[in-house]
């Protein structure tokens, strides 16, 4: 239960942390994981559904209630970087084959 690799989790979750943060989270996790570990001992049958809360997969027809493009300008205005009506991002694929 101990030795949770905070740096690995932060990397998976795309969070840059300082060394001080890593140390603090390590100790937080110890007490939190110790607490939630009590779920391990609950006697629950294997057929207890995990889909609860009165919820099922809910589908509906996509009726095109909103015409295409009507919100474009308002949405783009909130993006940090745009160019010619598109959101601008840094390149995703690294062209070097290393």
């Amino acid at each position, binding site marked *: 239960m101990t030795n949770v690799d905070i740096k690995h989790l932060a990397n998976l979750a795309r969070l840059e*942390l300082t060394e001080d943060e890593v140390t603090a*989270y390590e100790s937080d996790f110890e007490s939190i994981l110790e607490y939630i570990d009590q779920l391990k001992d*609950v006697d*629950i049958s294997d057929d207890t559904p995990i889909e609860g809360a*009165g919820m099922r997969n809910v589908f509906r027809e996509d009726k095109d209630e909103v015409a295409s493009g009507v919100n474009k300008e*308002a949405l783009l205005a*909130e993006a940090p970087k745009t160019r010619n009506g598109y959101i601008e991002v840094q390149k995703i694929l690294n062209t070097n084959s290393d």
Partner: protein
Amino acid sequence: MEITKQTIEELHKKITAKELSVRELVDAYIKNISENNEELNVYLTVFDEAYINEQVLMAQKKFDDGEATLLTGIPLSMKDVICMKGLRATGGSKILENYKATYDATVISKLTEHTPVFVGKTNTDEFAQGASTENSAYGVTKNPHDTERVAGGSSGGATASVAAEMAVAGLGSDTGGSIREPASFCGVVGFKPTYGAVSRYGLMAMASSFDVISPTAKTVRDAEILFNAIKGKDDFDATSLDVTKEIKPVKKIGVPYSFLKEGIDEDVKTVFDTNIETLKKAGYEIVDISIPMIEKALAVYYVLVPAEVSSNMSRYDGVKYGEKIEGKDLEDTYKKTRGQLLGKEVKRRIMLGTYVLSAGYADQFYRNAWKVRTKIRENLATVFTEVDMIAMPVAPTPAFKIGEKANDPMQMYLNDIFTVVANVAGIPAMSIPAGSVSRDEKSLPIGLQLIGAHGEDMTLFEVGKKFESAL
């Protein structure tokens, strides 16, 4: 009586009888806001004069034309996780510091039909994650009853806005007690509806199978008026439902005494015992109940909520909207933006969620927590065949001091022990002002929590009103 102490119905009557104008009413509240907001930090945004004036004129016209409803002209506060088109919505986070919402939440569209006067957006723990507003990127909201103490959270701004008479009523949200605990700390009513009874469209998502938009007000009746205006199925939220049933007669109220033995402040327990006597005098039969697995509800909550948080927070990436810190490549931009602009608790929950959902742990934690959640729901359904309602304290303590629990997340989480049950089960619950305790020569309010069966929101209001008038 002072204008700012009156209920929605009293104000409505006065404006209808032309004893009071919408302008006078709103000015009285604006005065309180301008005098107290700097000290209490209740509002993150107070709307500008022009926008408020426009709403005042429209509301007064509705009264003059004989078209006013109960909420017309009533000054309301909105928690800053609720989107209002064209207006700043921070969610209490640095990452949305300059974000303007691009659409109205369904609750805003529904309220707008009544022409209330929205006065501003209230402080919250970052993306509603916390129990004290100490996780807000914009500073803590101070408790109007003792400014050295927290107002509670995450809807601490919402409940303080009502307690400090800076709004007649307001909307917050409740994922694990976020309207009820601050309502108890601030001495106002906080009502968490049945899950799905109010559309979540336009509410910044925290944990989607738990979140409910929730009213806070001076009285149970005021909270009911707000709830009636915002409830109902909505095409924009597939989990919304028309769930609220007719009022049913209530005879038996259950108290899970064995669950209340430990971890509760002695004075809070005394207030609760007095409240039980009040309920008895009001004609209710009190039944000692046990709810199997109720003691696991908090562990279930702190597995499932971080899991949903880790997924919901992935939208804050510095690309589509919000602030951005550019790195050397896209991945580095994600990491810098999220690492530097999200706060300590949000990052903690994202990583906790990532952990409980990761291969090898998902069965042990996530799936098991869902199974226990299902069991708790079933157990509660059985309990509600034996009693009509459940009474419990809201929080184990009165409002705590600012900083007292800020560095111990597990202590902060334990504060939710009595409130998470209703969210785990998706059932309605309410905190009603029920007494006070003395700390440092100051009187601090304490709430009583009433919990109803699924869809019994209206019945909860009835019992709440009876308790309120029996006090």
